[in-house]
């Protein structure tokens, strides 16, 4: 479609500048002059209270929402110049759920990730089927291969959707609250998986999180949002601290060392008790 965008083989950086967005029904800007640069090889965590614009930002980065003002450039090329297929070769989205009355099997679901790199009429080659099996293996979902996707549990279906994103072979993975519906052990399992994908496959991960401690443990870079604005943006070590957390969440946090692992953990101060005991 576009010469410049089709020449890009690998996306090293994404530049967001002055990105603002206010849908006609919203009373205020949902994104308010966001400026940031995302570079490959990082594990980005986006944190902030509900309605702070985390999902809106992700949707703009994936071109699911067209730009109202400001710009997003991939390797210097405006995101709007990429066709959906071109973009899908670089950016994969791990959806949180799938609509009801969905009746495809796990294998069929994962194989859908091949779409962006295949042509019309092309029957899936052995090599492609092999890729699907590899992704199922990598996410420990091979045993569910022939089951309907709809019967899987939350943790299992999240892993299958991750497998689908892996089949897409995009260098960047975008996730919107991937662990919010999972129990503690599945949360850790999912985050470990993402972490190992970054280490071993060189994937860049951009992930909306609600759990500050997961963000502190797994993300090397952090984007902290509030009311549509990007308040803090930088390395987790430097920027994730008590003051910044209080600014973003309006709640004070205690910083403790974990008694066993001595990792830093953040505990919110819940305020005076309202328990009736």
């Amino acid at each position: 479609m576009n010469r410049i965008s089709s020449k890009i083989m690998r996306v090293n950086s994404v530049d967001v500048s002055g990105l603002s967005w206010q849908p006609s029904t919203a009373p205020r800007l949902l994104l308010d002059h966001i400026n940031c640069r995302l570079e490959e090889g990082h594990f980005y965590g986006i944190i902030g209270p509900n309605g702070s614009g985390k999902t809106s930002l992700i949707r703009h980065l994936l071109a699911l929402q067209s730009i109202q003002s400001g710009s997003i450039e991939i390797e210097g090329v405006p995101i709007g110049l990429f066709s959906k297929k071109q973009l899908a070769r670089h950016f994969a989205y791990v959806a949180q759920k799938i609509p009801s009355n969905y009746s495809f099997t796990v294998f069929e679901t994962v194989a859908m990730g091949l779409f962006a790199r295949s042509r019309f009429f092309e029957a899936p080659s052995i090599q492609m089927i092999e890729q699907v099996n590899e992704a199922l293996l990598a996410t420990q979902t091979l045993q569910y291969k022939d089951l309907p996707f709809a019967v899987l549990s939350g943790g299992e279906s999240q892993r299958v959707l991750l497998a689908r994103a892996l089949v897409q072979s995009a260098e960047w993975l975008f996730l919107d609250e991937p662990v919010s519906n999972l129990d503690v052990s599945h949360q850790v399992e999912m985050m470990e998986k993402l972490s190992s994908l970054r280490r071993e496959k060189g994937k860049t991960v951009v992930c909306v999180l609600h759990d500050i401690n997961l963000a502190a443990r797994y993300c090397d870079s952090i984007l902290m949002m509030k009311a549509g604005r990007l308040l803090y943006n930088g390395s987790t070590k430097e920027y994730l601290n008590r003051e910044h957390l209080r600014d973003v969440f309006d709640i004070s946090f205690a910083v403790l060392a974990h008694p066993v692992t001595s990792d830093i953990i953040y505990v919110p101060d819940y305020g005076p008790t309202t328990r009736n005991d």
Partner: protein
Amino acid sequence: MKSKPVVLAILLTALLAIMVAVALSVGAVHVQIRDIIRILMSYIPFFDQQVSTAYIPKSHETIIMAIRLPRILLAGLVGCGLSLSGAVLQGVLRNPLADPQVLGISSGAAFGAAVAISFGFTYSAFGLGGIAGAAFVGALATIFCVLKISFSEGKSSLIGILLAGIAISSLLTSAITMIMVLDREKLEKVYMWMLGSFSAASEMRVIFMLIFVVLGLLAILPLSRALDLMMTGDDSAQSMGVDVEALRKWMILVSSLMVAACVSVSGIIGFVGLIIPHVVRLIAGPRHTRLLPLSCVVGAIFMIICDTLARTMAAPSEIPVGAITAILGAPYFLFLLARSARKGAIR
């Protein structure tokens, strides 16, 4: 219960051929199937040298070639067109209850037909008589309105499209009722048209339908895999490389045109476009690469069976085919549904 798709396709195509032969043979005059084969072969170059039709009465040949064959082909093509557009609309609107009537196109056609019947239009064009022609124009006008309304803000909402269709459909149905009440003489004619029939089949109508179905297939089948992705949700499909908005507009446009053609030549035949895609999903799974072609074949088979019953059950009078489709199809569908519910395939 997912059979091998290729085997399934071959079996169903064979079944279609058998049904065509049986339908050609039955009627007021019974014609032997081997005579039918001879007559058909005598119309094909090269084969016409191999067979002799001398002993077959000329009247049989006329019945087969001029009366039954166009009617059967028309029924098959309409069954195919309605099932295909039903399957496509259920996919792009992501709604299992969507069918060819959901966007109000059938009502638009019926309104056109009612106006033509009431005013007694007699011109004819493209092989369509005044009524069918007016129905087609009515359907096209409705498509224009539906598309205009549902895509007005550039971005479509699924519920918006469905509601616009329902509103337009009710509006037109009321208008038809007004015409019927104000013009009592024509009431029965309008009502019978709306129930659907293939009794006005002609060679020109077959060609008209053939063009729409073939172009429809060419416009839809290459996009089957994108339709699969649509089932995972708009954001998800788009992030995998599908231009969701463009695909949805295109699919709605193409399937609407097919429905417009079907309804203009046959009246409103319900149930087929809703149920056939579900039947095919139950036997062949949800993948559109299988669902769409198999829906065409099964839709054609089903419609030919229904039309054959329509013209033979109460001969010499005819039962409207639209009344037969549901009587025949609903019990079978309920049986399939109950069976797959037991197996846990439907949740």
